[in-house]
Each structure stands twice: as C-alpha cells, then as structure tokens.
C-alpha cells in the first residue's frame, strides 16, 4: 500500500518518531517483526494509535492496515482509542482479589467518577483493569504510567491520585 500525496503531506508522525521506527524495522530480520516495537514507539510519543496513524505504521511495516489493526487490538498495552494523560492499571487477578481488589476498584471509581475502561471528562485519567502485575506478595497493586504501587488502601490511593495532575 502506498500513501497518497495528501496523506504524505499530513503525516501524523514527526520526523524524530519516524526515524526511530525505521531504526527498529531495520534491526529486525523482517519488517513486520518490528510491529510491536513500532506500535510501542507510537504509544510512547502519542499515547494511542489513531486510524490515520495506523495506516502510516502499516506502510512502514509493509503490512496491510487491517493486519496491523488485528495485532494492535490483540495486545493490552496498545490503545486504539484516545486515553487520558495518565493511565491507571488496576490488577484484578487472584492474589489482589483476595487482598482487597474490590475496595481498590470502589475507591478509584468513586474518586475519579468513572468506571473501568473509561476516561475522566477532564482527560486526566484512564482507568483500566490489568492481569497480574507480579506483585502478589504486596497485594493489592496498581500501576500508574508504568510506575508500580503496592499494599494499597483508601489513603494511599488518594495520595497516589494527587501525584498525577
């Protein structure tokens, strides 16, 4: 697939991002092998992948947009919808469930005024469930923007939320 001139003029990727992606592609045996690398680079810069961006990434990877979309939608950490400035991942696996996941979920949804899978109207937080974060000995646990928080209770949850304006 080749991008139209119109699409080339309105690229959603900065030159810096594009060159980082091309380097990832070059380091792989086959271009499509870098699909996850490229999607994660896009995530790092833009947070989520729009349809327009997906088409551009597909060109870089020499995949069809549909095929790349099937990959992008398969993995938890690739977002195909806009997300908030901060992403909270709440562990709902068995050890956290035993140790009080329900209380964590209730506190977070009450404080943020949203349910799991939603973004606050001010665009500050997206709240998502996640499978076991590997912190079972310090359950319940959650992750905000890649930072792990453990032994959660109502007080610590409120404090953590404050840290992310």
């Amino acid at each position, binding site marked *: 697939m080749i991008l139209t001139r119109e699409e080339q003029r309105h690229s959603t990727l900065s030159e810096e991002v594009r060159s980082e992606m091309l380097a990832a592609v070059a*380091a*792989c045996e086959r271009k499509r092998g870098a*699909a996850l690398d490229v999607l994660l680079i896009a995530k790092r810069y833009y947070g989520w992948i729009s349809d327009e961006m997906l088409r551009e990434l597909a060109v870089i*990877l020499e995949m069809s947009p549909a095929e790349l979309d099937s990959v992008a939608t*398969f993995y938890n950490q690739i977002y195909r919808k806009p997300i908030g400035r901060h992403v909270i991942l709440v562990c709902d696996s068995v050890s956290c469930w*035993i140790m009080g996941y329900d209380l964590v979920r209730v506190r977070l949804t009450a404080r943020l005024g949203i349910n799991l899978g939603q973004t606050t109207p001010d665009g500050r937080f997206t709240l998502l469930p996640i*499978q076991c974060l590997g912190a079972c000995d310090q359950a319940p646990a959650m992750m905000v923007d890649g930072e792990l928080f453990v032994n959660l209770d109502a007080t610590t949850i409120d404090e953590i939320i404050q840290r992310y304006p």
Partner: protein
Amino acid sequence: MEKPLTGRMRLGEGPVDLDAYEKAGGYAALRKALLRMTPEELIQLVKDANLRGRGGAGFPAGVKWSSAPTGVDSPRPKYVVADADEMEPGTFKDRFLMEGDPHQLIEGVILTSYAIQAEIAYVFIRWEYTRARRLLEQTIAEAYRKNYAGSSILGTRYSLEVRLHVSAGRYIAGEASSMLNALEGGRAVPRPRDPLPTISGLWGKPTVTHNVETLCNVPHIVSNGAAWFKSLGRTQDAGTKIYGVSGKVKRPGAWELPMGVTVREILEEHAGGMRDGLTLRGFLPGGASTDFLTEQHLDTPMDFESIQKAGSRLGTGGIVALDDRTCPVGMAHNLITFFARESCGWCTPCREGLPWSAEILAALEKGEGSPGDLEILEDQCRLLGPGNTFCPLAPGAVEPLQSALKYFREDFERHIREKRCPWK
C-alpha cells in the same frame, strides 16, 4: 542451605551490579564453557543435572536443547528466547530474579545460546515490568561492553546477538509458540504442536525457549557440576526453586529453597502461617492454572512428581492461599474470568466455554444460581480439558475450577440453596 540463584542478592541494596556479579564468580561459567567445553559437553552436563523447566511444564532443559539441529548444515540463524513475560496470577519469581540479579539471567541466556550454537537471543519481557526492562537494557549493554555478548565472545569464534523484546501484554504470549508469533509481529495465538519450535520456531528456524528461572540455573550448573545441582534438591528433582506465597498469610514473599520442601514448610515457616483469626482452606500450588489442594496435602513435597500425585501441578511454584473468610466460589469466578479474558479466541471450546463458565459463576455469586449449574460447570471442565483444545490455556483454566467443585462442593451448593453468597 545453598542458595545459588539468590545468594548474591542483598536485601535493600538494589540489584547485583556487574562489578559485584563478577567478584562473586559471575561470568566464570561463561568463560569456562566457551574456552573449555564443547556445546555437546554443555548439553550433556545440563542433561546430567536433570534441570527441568521452571515455567510450569517441567520439561527437561537438556533434552529440549538436544532436539535442536546441530552441525554445519543446520538451519540458521538459530534462536534462544527467554520468556520473561511473567503473567501467571500468583507468580512473581521472575520479576524477583530479574530485579535482583539481572546478569545471572543474561549469563544463562548466553550459555544456552552457546549450547545450541544460536546466533540470536531474545529476552521477551512484558511491558508492565518497567523496572526489570530498564535493568536488562543496561545489563545487556554491559555484557556487550565486556564482550560477554556480541562478536567473538571472549576471543573465541562464537558470536551472539542479544536483544530485548518488549511485548505489549496478553497471558497467552507466555505459551511458547504464541510467543514466537508475537516476536514475528503477529497476534500471539498458538501454533500447532508439530513441528516443535526447536526444529521450526521463530521465522521457521530452530528456537529454544525457556523460562527466566530455568536459564538462571544454567551458570551454576556449569560452575559446580551436575552432581552438586542434583544434591540441592530434597527429593528426586534437582536444584533449588523460587517458591512464592500470596494471600492472607503473615509474611507473603518469595524464597529460594531446596526443590521438594513441603508445602507446610513454605506456608508455615517462611510465610509465617495464616494471619491471626484465619485458617487455611486450600491453596493453588503453582499459580492460577493449577488444581486446588487442601490441608490434607500440606506435607506433600513441592516438586514436580509429588504435586502431580496429589492431583495438581507444581506450575510456577507460586502458592496462592485461600483462607476460611474468602469465598471459594468467588475465587473460582475470579480465576475463570481471568482466563476467559485472556483466551485468544482461536479455538471454540476455550473462546465459548470460558465466558459461559464465568457467567454461571457470576450468577452463583449474585445468588442467581439454579440447580443444574454445577453439572454444567463439570461438563465444561471436561469439554475444555486436555485433548479438546488447541493449546493448554483452557485445560489449565479449568484445573482450579474442577478441584474447587471437588473440595468446596458444599460451598457451591449453599450459593444455590441460599440464593446468596454466604461470605457477603
């Protein structure tokens, strides 16, 4: 008691760095193997040591290695993939190993690669392990700088490229063939069991995949020998094991102990027993996909065969304790919901059967269960069992359900009879 895997770690001091690792004998095994051992000798050594996979299946590592083609005309490049995609609920041992002593893993990866004469090695790690990712990036760079990786390692004719692959989530990517599809930039769905990845794996080339903990054992076997490794275990299984305990125990945590210590020793001596006022009703011995065991199994040695004889699996060795104030139906619901969400959707029994089971369990929890529900759940356990699905996800998923139905039958029946969850 010897603790080869965790012996260099110092509590509260952060990860073992390159300097400390080398001073404690790190990379001596690599030097020894590359300069004084042939790949065949290395494979034989690991076979003799009876190192079995620590990721859940317990397959002998040396046998796996020797199933990869050798010789000048074998397909190239060959690959080694370290599975650091730890996602089995109740399991945190690989994070512990990578955050505590990252060079140990990398040395194990390079040794394994040398054994099968691989050209490229991957560490396949989940996105959420942000700390381990940063550490491994640095660790791999240091290994290159010291020429433990890269071209002509330590002046020999052996060269190896070591790469860190950050994955983007999904439990099924931890299944070896799904992991290869993920590495090829596709959906992490499983491949047919035949041909084996060691014959045709990543990009159709011979590929050996191993769990992090398995690989961490390799340098110690090279340094100290097969007899030493076998002597570490208390039963017929060799080596030590990182056991973990979570749930309402006094001191949740992870400990390196001889393979084959009893469940009681782990739960009572190391985890401190249940919290005051609580008693143990049951436990998952090795993560979410293992059958429940109960108090009657406390004196079972935590090794592959003993736990299997008791009716479960050693799995990852991550014990999850169920106390008497936590609803076993609720726990089964949590577990099945996890597996329903993580099913890749490739084959029908798993895609349809797990959500169906989760719905029934949710209804039971809400007091909306009806007579006959338990029989449907039992049917599901059979229909999703071994032989009926494309990969081991669904058979693993129904292990805790079938054993919960067996050991906590009365609790399930009460939910239906009383039309409520008695724990709420």
